[in-house]
């Protein structure tokens, strides 16, 4: 039994004629501490799967387990606790609070998490020790994404879920962010799941999952992940 297991998980949006099967009997497993990359064309159902895993959305059918928890059986308040304690989320568009400084955005996570790390330390970890008191609008895209990662990490989550974290960044800053994510995976022993369009990025993962039309078409273990700086963009 893997740390994360998807067993015949489906997600159907809408009903009747207009129903869309965004995830169709998805089944896969991810081991603890792995850095897993999910690949697939647009509309393949990647985000759907990640949202289900992160407890942001409820599956139509099937079972999702993370460790000893069964996510699919949870009701809303339990899902909230699950997000609060176990999951860190990183978005393509950062979703920082514009009226909070970098430090305060990270503190936002500490407010709800009992095992949180020190926000200033985490920001230093992501290389932003000198920008603690800047507002998001005063930071570059890459810096904002690093704040967003710091905010996710601050909760010290077991799972770090990233939906196209480099989607809005140029290749150089993108590489920095990916580099950070691999380091997190190693140092904090966090299980990291990264969604991307970019097949070349996939080479950095311990595990690569390919999706198409709402199904998993390939789930391979990569025994020799490529270092981020060695990836050809």
């Amino acid at each position, binding site marked *: 039994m893997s740390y994360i297991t998807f067993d015949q998980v489906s997600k159907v949006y809408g009903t009747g004629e207009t129903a869309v099967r965004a995830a169709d009997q998805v089944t896969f497993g991810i081991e603890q501490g792995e850095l897993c990359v999910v690949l697939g064309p647009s509309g393949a159902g990647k985000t759907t799967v990640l949202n289900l895993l992160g407890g*942001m959305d409820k599956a139509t059918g099937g079972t999702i387990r993370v460790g000893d928890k069964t996510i699919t059986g949870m009701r809303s*308040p339990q899902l*909230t606790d699950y997000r609060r304690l176990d999951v860190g989320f990183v*978005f393509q568009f950062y979703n920082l609070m514009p*009226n909070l400084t970098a430090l*305060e955005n990270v503190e936002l996570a500490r407010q709800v998490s009992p095992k949180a790390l020190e926000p200033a330390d985490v920001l230093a970890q992501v290389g932003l020790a000198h920008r603690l008191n800047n507002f998001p*609008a005063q930071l570059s895209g890459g810096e904002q994404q690093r704040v967003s990662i710091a905010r996710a990490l601050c909760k010290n989550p077991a799972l770090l879920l990233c939906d196209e974290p480099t989607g809005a960044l140029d290749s150089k800053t993108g590489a920095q962010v990916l580099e950070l994510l691999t380091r997190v995976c190693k140092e904090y022993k966090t299980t990291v799941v990264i969604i991307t369009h970019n097949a070349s990025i996939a080479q950095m993962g311990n595990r690569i999952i390919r999706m198409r039309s709402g199904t998993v078409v390939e789930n391979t273990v990569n025994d020799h992940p490529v270092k981020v700086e060695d990836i050809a963009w």
Partner: protein
Amino acid sequence: MVNTQRGRGALTRKLFRDMHRSAMQFVAIVLLCALGTWVFSGLEGTWRMLEVSAETYFAQANLADFWINLPGATKADVDNVRNQPGVLDVQSRYTAEFDTPDYGEDASLKVLAYADAARINVPLVRTGAALTQDDLRGILLDEEFAKAHGIRVGDTLKLRQNTLTRVFTVRALVLSAEQVITAKDVMPDPLAYGYAIVNKAALNGFPVNELIVTLQPGVDAAQAEARIQALLPQALIITQETHPVVQRMRSEVTMFRNMTYVFPVLAFAVAAMIVLTTLTRMIENQRSQIGTLKALGYGPNRIRTHYVNYAFVPSLGGALLGQLVGHYTLPDMLYAMEVNHFIIPERIRPPIAFTEWGMTALMVALSIFICLAAYRRAEKEEAAALLRPKPPKAGSRVLLERWKGFWGKLNFNTKMIVRGVARNKGRTAVAMVGLLCCNALIICAMGLQDSMQASVGDYYRGTVGYSLRADLDTDAGTLESYQNRVDAQAVEGVMETQVSLRYAGGSRAVLMSVLSDGQQLMRLGANNALIALPTDGIAISRKLSEVTGLATGDSVAIWLPGDDTGIPMTIRAVYPVNIGQTVYMGKAVWDGLRKGAFTPTGLLLESPTALAVHQLEQAREVAAFKDPEAQYTLTMSVLDSTTAVFSLMYAAALGLAFVICYNMGLINFTERTRDYATLKVLGYHQKEIRGLMMWENNIVTLIGAGLGIVPGILLTRVVLDAIGSESTVFIANVTFVTILTATAITSVFSVLIEWMITRKVRTLDMVEALKSVE
């Protein structure tokens, strides 16, 4: 051509779909526009209904312009007045009060005995037939008095004055325009007081004592009055402006007119402000669509027209709806309240006034202007720039953070809220102004009642120091005789007469009150202190000073009824007395004038024994008793029925607050959905997010409502000034309890609405909210 048609159809469809999608916001605009015009049209329609009903009644009765009080007027006097330029018609009559012993010891009638058929102040016959000239037994009776006593046409009615009695037969029940309100004091009491009309020939032996005069249309009343006054210096001329009944009717109309212009104008202003924010947001949210339409090649005029419709359709719909509903519903509901104790035979609906159309037009114009201004800003940008999302507003430090010690102590959530409030300054400001206005309106509505109570209470419970007053007839004895006879802690007398006060700026019929110099029962000074009456002049009440502009040191002349010269006098003091247009004179000054003995018309009694009261009740010359506490209650009940209209303002204020709070709350929620979704993703529980929202709302509410306190008090002053009656001075007096209550109502209201809005957090879809940058 065909293409254009199809294109227009698509845009129209887009307009209605947009409206459907942001239904709440469009409904809010419709409602706000409707609310603004509804209150205005409703109140405007109501006072106009009152005015047109009363004035039509006056006109149909051929209301006199002057009532000339002239004991012993001769035929020659009548002819001389008739020959004055500008005079249309003159009638002479005998006017006096008669007892009706068959209907209770206290009941009396004001009898108007016309020398010939009534042409001026013609009574309106309700049942029965009018008097004929040769009818010496017939009487026309006040319908209200008849109703109160169950008197019917054909019944007999005995009139008594002193030792003389006459028996009449009721020929008809009537209404008289000059008696549109029939009250001996404050409140009509048809059981005790009414009026009746007879032929003067039926009361032979009584002299003519009153001339009633109408003027030709367009004649200047003041000039005509001056000419008649010069002709008959001893006459006391009462004009429509100083006639207690006519004036009371008209000041009632004026009061409602003034209220119409204060409250709804405020409601209108607030409504307009909210329309402004809502429309501005809506246009800004349409940025990328404006860009798309541009990119598709739509001309600027087409696009602009399309967006102007955003304002035009809902504002026209709302404003017209409000106007029509207001004009055709509120007057019907409020008329009875305003008419109060006035007896007006027919309710006449006024046409929709120009001002009402104007308000509607203004509302629509304002909405369109707001919309155009917002659109122009968006239009300036290139299509490409429009298609890119507007960068989110940057956060920044707030002023409070400079104060390190304090800022450091705040908890994280509070800091976040303070920044959030500061970041959305515009929206926060609108919400605050909304709450401010709401609180100010409620404070004002409640403060008016406070102030009226305090002002009237100050007179009857402060100025008035006696516990009972007995009104005396003309055959009263001397004050000493009563002081010897009546068992009470104190017995004092007052001699009151109607006099004509003439001064540089004009003349006015007022009450002169002569009091003993050492009197203790009228506390006329500041803070109800006892004060010595002037020994070398007169004092006047605050209201008299207000309406005439007279002040301490001014010279005036007092004309006693029947005198043909005035008595020059100097005003020595203005007494801060809240009720009455009164001239106060000391007994010593009166005695010095040698105008006759001091004969009390009223006895002021402090704690009389029951026996003393009983004896006075038996005494023939005692006409009525007045208990200050009862007078207070009466006055307040008259004012209360008037101020019942204020309940409408409470309703309007709350309605407004609801729409503002709900609308602003909704806009706030929509714009910050992303923030709330992020919190949800981070694992904030619903309760925590709602708590944060509530906290923010509470802070804004407290500040907004708090800022409304001072304007509320000021507004109370303005309104009090506007509605001030002819006889009473209202001093603004907003109590602490009122402020607290109003603020509590505003706050609870705001909190409840925010609570409703925060329920949306439950259904907030994180996935949807965070999907794309909008």
